[in-house]
C-alpha cells in the first residue's frame, strides 16, 4: 500500500498551496509532513483523502491513480484536527458509522466498535457522547473511527495540536504503537518538529508547497539539506563567517564547508550542542542566562563583539557555568552549513 504524490499543484485564487509536490510513501511507513503554517501540508493530505483535487499532478494509492476518485470511495481513514465526531451519535455509533453506511448488521457493528475502542484504550466508553469526553479521548475515538473500515492509508491532520502538552506526548506515542502494530501506511501532518522527529520513520519538510527534504529524523536533524530545514528543525545559531575556498573562518576557527556557500560573507549555522563553553578569565564573552533541562543545560552567551550564542552543556556543568561567568566559546570541528548573511550572531529558536 504505497502512496505516491506526483507533481501536485494546487492554487486557491492567487495563493499557491502546492507547487509541484512529489513524494512516495512506502508500505507500512509513518511519514510526517512537517512545515510552517500555510506551507500546504493540509492541502496535500486532502488531495490524498479526496477532499481536494489537484490542479495538475496525480495521487496513486497502491499503484492505482485515484486522483479522480471521489472521497467516499477512497480507501483512506482520516483524523481531523478537532471536533470531528458526530455530536448526535454516541462513541460506539461514531466508530461504527462507516459500517452503518455499508449496511452491516448491528451485531457486527457493535463487536467491531468494541474491538476498536479496546485498541485505542477506550473500552467501556461506547455509550458516552462526544461532549462527555476530554479532547484526548475524542481524538482516540476519531482514530478508532478512521481505522474502522481497515483503510489502506491512515491520514492524520495535526491530530494533537488542540491537546495539552502531556496528553499530546502520550497520544503520539500511542498512535505510533498502533501504527506499528497494524503496519498501516500513515501520513502524519504536524507543524511541531519535535513531534515529527519523535514518531516518524521519515520526515518530509515542506516549504511553500514544495518538498525541501525527506529523510529519517536523525538525518533531517544532523544533515539538513537546506538552510530552511536546518532552521526549522531544531535550534540553530547564526554566526558570522568568511568563506575561503572549501573552508569557512568563524570565531577564529577554520571549519570545512558542508555544500556550497552562498557568498563570501555568510552566516555559519551551528547547533547549540556543537558549541563548547569553557570558563576563561580573558574569554570572548560571558554567560547571560542558563536554563537547566535535566540532562543538559542551555546557556545563553553574550559575545563581546555583540550578538549571542546558544550552547548546550551537560546538565551537571550547570552549577560551574553560572550566569555572569567569563567564558570562551569554541565550535566542534565538523563540516558546517552556511546561509546568506543576515544579522550578527542571532540564534534562531524553532517554531512550534
Amino acid at each position, binding site marked *: 500500500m504505497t502512496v505516491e504524490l506526483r507533481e501536485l499543484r494546487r492554487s486557491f485564487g492567487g495563493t499557491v498551496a502546492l507547487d509541484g509536490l512529489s513524494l512516495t510513501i512506502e508500505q507500512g511507513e509513518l511519514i510526517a509532513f512537517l512545515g510552517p503554517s500555510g506551507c500546504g501540508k493540509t492541502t496535500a493530505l486532502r488531495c490524498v483523502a479526496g477532499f481536494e483535487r489537484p490542479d495538475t499532478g496525480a495521487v496513486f494509492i497502491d499503484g492505482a491513480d485515484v486522483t479522480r476518485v471521489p472521497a*467516499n470511495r477512497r480507501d483512506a481513514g482520516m483524523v481531523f484536527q478537532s471536533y470531528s465526531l*458526530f455530536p448526535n451519535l454516541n462513541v460506539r455509533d461514531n466508530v461504527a458509522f462507516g459500517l452503518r453506511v455499508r449496511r452491516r448488521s448491528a451485531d457486527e457493528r457493535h463487536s467491531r466498535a468494541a474491538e476498536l475502542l479496546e485498541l485505542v484504550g477506550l473500552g467501556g466508553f461506547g455509550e458516552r457522547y462526544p461532549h462527555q469526553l476530554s479532547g484526548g479521548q475524542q481524538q482516540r475515538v476519531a482514530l478508532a473511527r478512521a481505522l474502522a473500515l481497515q483503510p489502506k492509508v491512515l491520514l492524520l491532520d495535526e491530530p494533537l495540536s488542540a491537546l495539552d502538552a502531556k496528553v499530546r506526548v502520550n497520544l503520539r506515542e500511542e498512535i505510533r504503537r498502533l501504527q506499528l502494530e497494524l503496519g498501516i501506511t500513515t501520513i502524519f501532518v504536524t507543524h511541531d518538529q519535535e513531534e515529527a522527529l519523535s514518531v516518524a520513520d521519515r520526515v518530509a519538510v515542506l516549504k511553500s508547497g514544495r518538498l525541501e527534504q525527506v529523510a529519517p529524523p536523525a538525518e533531517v536533524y544532523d544533515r539538513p539539506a537546506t538552510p530552511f530545514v536546518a532552521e526549522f528543525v531544531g535550534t540553530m545559531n547564526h554566526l558570522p563567517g568568511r568563506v575561503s575556498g572549501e573552508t569557512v573562518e568563524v570565531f577564529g576557527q577554520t571549519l570545512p564547508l558542508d555544500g556550497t556557500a552562498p557568498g563570501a560573507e555568510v552566516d555559519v549555522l551551528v547547533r547549540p550542542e556543537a558549541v563548547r563553553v569553557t570558563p576563561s578569565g580573558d574569554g570572548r564573552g560571558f554567560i547571560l542566562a542558563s536554563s537547566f533541562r535535566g540532562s543538559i543545560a542551555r546557556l545563553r552567551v553574550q559575545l563581546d563583539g555583540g550578538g549571542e550564542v546558544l550552547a548546550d552543556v551537560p546538565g551537571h556543568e550547570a552549577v560551574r557555568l553560572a550566569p555572569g561567568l567569563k567564558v570562551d566559546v569554541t565550535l566542534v570541528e565538523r563540516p558546517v552549513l552556511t546561509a546568506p548573511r543576515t544579522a550578527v550572531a542571532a540564534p534562531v529558536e524553532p517554531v512550534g
Partner: protein
Amino acid sequence: MAGLTNSRRRGGGAGWLAAAPLLVVTLIAFGIPTVVLVVGAFSVKGGGFGFENLSATMREPYLGALWNSVTLSAVVAILGAVLGAFLAQAVLTSRSGLLREAVLTASGVLANFGGVPLAFIWIATLGNSGVVTAALGLGSGVLYNFWGLALVYLYFSVPLMVLVIAPALDGLKPQWREAALNNGASTWQFWRHVGIPVLGPALLGGAVLLFGGAFAAYATAAAMVGASVPLVTLQIADALTGNVLIGYENIALALSLDMIVIALLVMAVYLPLQKRSSRWLA
C-alpha cells in the same frame, strides 16, 4: 454547562430578588389577562360557571374555524420550514459573501412584514384585478382562498425561517461532512444520519415559530379573505365586536383559551427535543 451550574448556585435569595421586577411585570402583563380570559371562558349566561362556552367552541361554526386555523398554520409551518431551510443552506454554501448579506438583510425586513400592508401588496399583485392576475389572465379568486392565504403567510414565514435556521446551519462543522464522506457515506447519508438529526431541534423550533405566527395572524386575513376562509382569529373578532350577534364575548374568550391550549401542546412537543441537543451546536 458552566452557566448552568452557575445559575443553579445563585438560585438562592439574591437571584430571585434580582429577577423580581421582571416577574412582577410578567405577572401583570400575562397573569391578569389570563385570569380574566379563563374566568370569562367558564362564565355562563345567567351567572355561575360551566363548560357551556367551551363546548360551544367544539361545535360549528367554531370547530371548522379552529380546524382551518390549525391546518393553515401547519401547512405554513411545514412548507415554510422546508423552503426556508433549503434557501438558507443554498445561500450559506454559496461562495458569495454579498449574496449572503443581501439575503439575510432582506429576510430581516420581510420576516417583519404583516398586517394590512401585506394583504394589500398581494391584493395588488394577485387579487382579482391584480397586476399578475391581469397579465396572466388568471381570472378571479386566485388569492381569496385557503391556499392563497397560505401563500401570503409564507411570504413572511420563509424569511423568518431563514433567520432562525442560518445560525444552526453555520454551526454544522465542515469536518462532520468530511468525516462522513471519509467513512464512505454519500452526501444524502450524511444528511440522514448526522446533518438532519443535528439540525432537528432548530428545524422544529423554526416550524413551531412559523406555526405560532400563522396561528395568531389576524389583520392580513381580515383584510384579504374576510369570512370566506373562516379562521379562529376572525371568529374571535366577530364575537367580540358583536358583528354577528351580541352576547358572545365569552365564546370569544373560550376560543382564545382553545388557542392557548393548542399553542401549549405544540410547545410541549418542541421543548424536550430542543433541550436535548442545544449543546451539539455549541
